[in-house]
């Protein structure tokens, strides 16, 4: 059991290490001299930003310093939590920018992923029950998964937001408010939160429904289901067991889908200009703010890795086969 986790931790650390290396490598293997091209592109006339930037760039990119030295500096500053200074939000450090974007991200991602996972599995299970149910849930599920995240976001914004004017379509809370603990503020936040949540929820829902439908059909064909039916067990019991066993591969499915869902959230935030990491990342890209880009990238990666690790542990706890398989002595 311990060795199983040890191996898992090792793989995740290795992945994190590679991700950070990619993050560090990208600006370096781009053509041309990074410092000059960045300075030129930023083009802010403001003297002190230019000097601060030049001094900062030279220190970080220090072309005289050998390659691996730069790499170590990068790791050193990373571990100290200093991800450099944001260019387009100048005095703010990258970490601050990200820190006040993260709560929105969590508020958007966690509920939409979990609720869509639960609802999707329920839908998928129903689909396997009757032929006509299968012929409605399946096509609906496929259209939903096939819908680009941003298009559904646009449709909801345009339909519910503008046409019926039920929901605001921009920002995380009303512009005239500053964040404080009051009912009015919370209700405004929820009001703004609903459309991005709904769009993410619907697109993910389709994926889980289809996944569950295919897995549960496989479980209903399994030997233990046939045995229960041969002993005259009611369909309710057979379906209950098949559903529980079909949930397990859906847990690993959840872990593998995280990367795609995060990307979806990023685009949805752009449509609703919802101030999550995705929105910041895009703004950073549009303003060539390389340090913010690298910062956002690291946060997304570590978030996904952490979630994956948690889900892996949950899987081992939930699935007796892996838990007992390793410790139990099988003949």
């Amino acid at each position, binding site marked *: 059991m311990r060795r199983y986790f040890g191996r898992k931790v090792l793989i995740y650390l290795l992945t994190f290490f590679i991700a950070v290396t990619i993050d560090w490598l990208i600006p370096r293997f781009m053509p041309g001299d990074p410092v000059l091209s960045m300075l030129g592109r930023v083009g802010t006339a403001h003297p002190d930003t230019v000097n601060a930037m030049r001094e900062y760039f030279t220190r970080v990119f220090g072309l005289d310093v050998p390659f691996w030295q730069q790499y170590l500096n990068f790791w050193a500053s990373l571990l100290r939590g200093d991800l450099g200074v944001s260019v387009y939000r100048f005095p703010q450090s990258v970490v601050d920018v990200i820190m006040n974007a993260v709560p929105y991200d969590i508020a958007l991602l966690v509920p939409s992923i979990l609720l869509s996972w639960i609802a999707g599995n329920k839908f998928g299970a129903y689909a396997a029950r009757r032929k006509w149910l299968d012929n409605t849930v399946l096509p609906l599920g496929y259209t939903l998964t096939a819908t680009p995240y941003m298009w559904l976001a646009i449709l909801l914004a345009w339909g519910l937001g503008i046409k019926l004017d039920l929901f605001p379509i921009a920002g995380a809370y009303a512009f005239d408010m500053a964040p404080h603990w009051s009912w009015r503020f919370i209700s405004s936040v929820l009001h703004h939160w609903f459309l991005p949540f709904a769009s993410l929820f619907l697109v993910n829902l389709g994926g889980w429904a289809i996944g569950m439908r295919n897995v549960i059909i496989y479980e209903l064909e399994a030997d233990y289901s046939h045995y229960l039916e041969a002993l005259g067990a009611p369909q309710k019991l057979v379906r209950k067991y098949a559903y529980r066993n079909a949930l*397990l591969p859906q847990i690993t499915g959840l872990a593998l889908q995280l990367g795609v869902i995060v990307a979806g959230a990023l685009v949805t935030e752009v449509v609703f200009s919802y101030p999550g990491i995705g929105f910041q990342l895009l703004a950073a890209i549009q303003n060539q703010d390389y340090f913010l880009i690298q910062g956002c990238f690291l946060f997304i990666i570590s978030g996904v890795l952490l979630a994956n690790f948690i889900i892996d542990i949950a899987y081992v706890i939930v699935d007796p086969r892996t838990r007992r398989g390793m410790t*139990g002595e099988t003949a």
Partner: protein
Amino acid sequence: MSLHVENLKVYYQTLSGDVRALDGATFDIADGEIMGLAGESGCGKTTLAHSLIRLTPPLKFIGGRVELDGEELPIADMEKMDDFRFRKISIVPQYAMNALNPTRKIGKMTAELLASKGAKMKDVEPELRRRLDLVGLTQDVLDMYPIELSGGMKQRMVMVLSTLLDPSLLMADEITSALDVSTQKAVAEMLVEFRDRQFVKSMIIITHDISILYQVADTIMIMYAGQLAEKASKETIIESPRHPYTKMLISSLPQVGVQVNDTRLKGIPGTPPQLLEPPKGCRFRARCPLAFDKCLEVPPFVEVDPGHMVACWKEPGKNA
């Protein structure tokens, strides 16, 4: 009279039409009788077993009547059969090794299964524990997961589970074929013990290995291409079979003590007919050395001696 089957016809639906897998079977099983059901692959023995307990597509019920302890078995009706299944008629399936739900403790699963059938675990538990000792399984097997048991142990658990409500008829479908010689003997003898201890009233053991049936069965019924060929006590089937197919089948089985250089056994020429458009009359006609024009009609399954039924025109039965 434990089981009475009359002219049972069950076909197997396929894309290119109905395979007439079981074409009119009429036989009886007395109380306390262990009947061995043998025949080569594709002879319909599994179709017969499955149609008695769980007749689902692609199997299609064509006709015939089945009575168990005087009560008619509605085998064509899935729902109505539910109250017969597990209580009156039960099965130890061929896939017994993985018939237990892998993610559920065995005890919990048994309790839920019993509850779903309206029986309570409390009143069955003492008997269940006694039977676990009988088959050599420890008590704590109930809170283990199937993955922690060996193949043989899982099979014995399924045997105990299937016979927990003392069904009147138990079907054992090829449960010895996947086992080694030593465990095979233990499992076969366990079946006999289940009958001796009245866990089950009568039993059908389905297998292609006739020598196992000779050891444990009371009577043996041979099937060929969806039709019953012969049924008799195990001694008569082995020593003095009357149906040409049974004779050739028994004589083609190598035995310890028989070597190729001294006695060269002979197989049965030709191949079994495909059952999409089966040949008219007796289906063994093409391969039978004694075939003559009368064989174009289907020979009735008649009693030539007390307890000895044969379907062959060459064997003049009492009423032929």
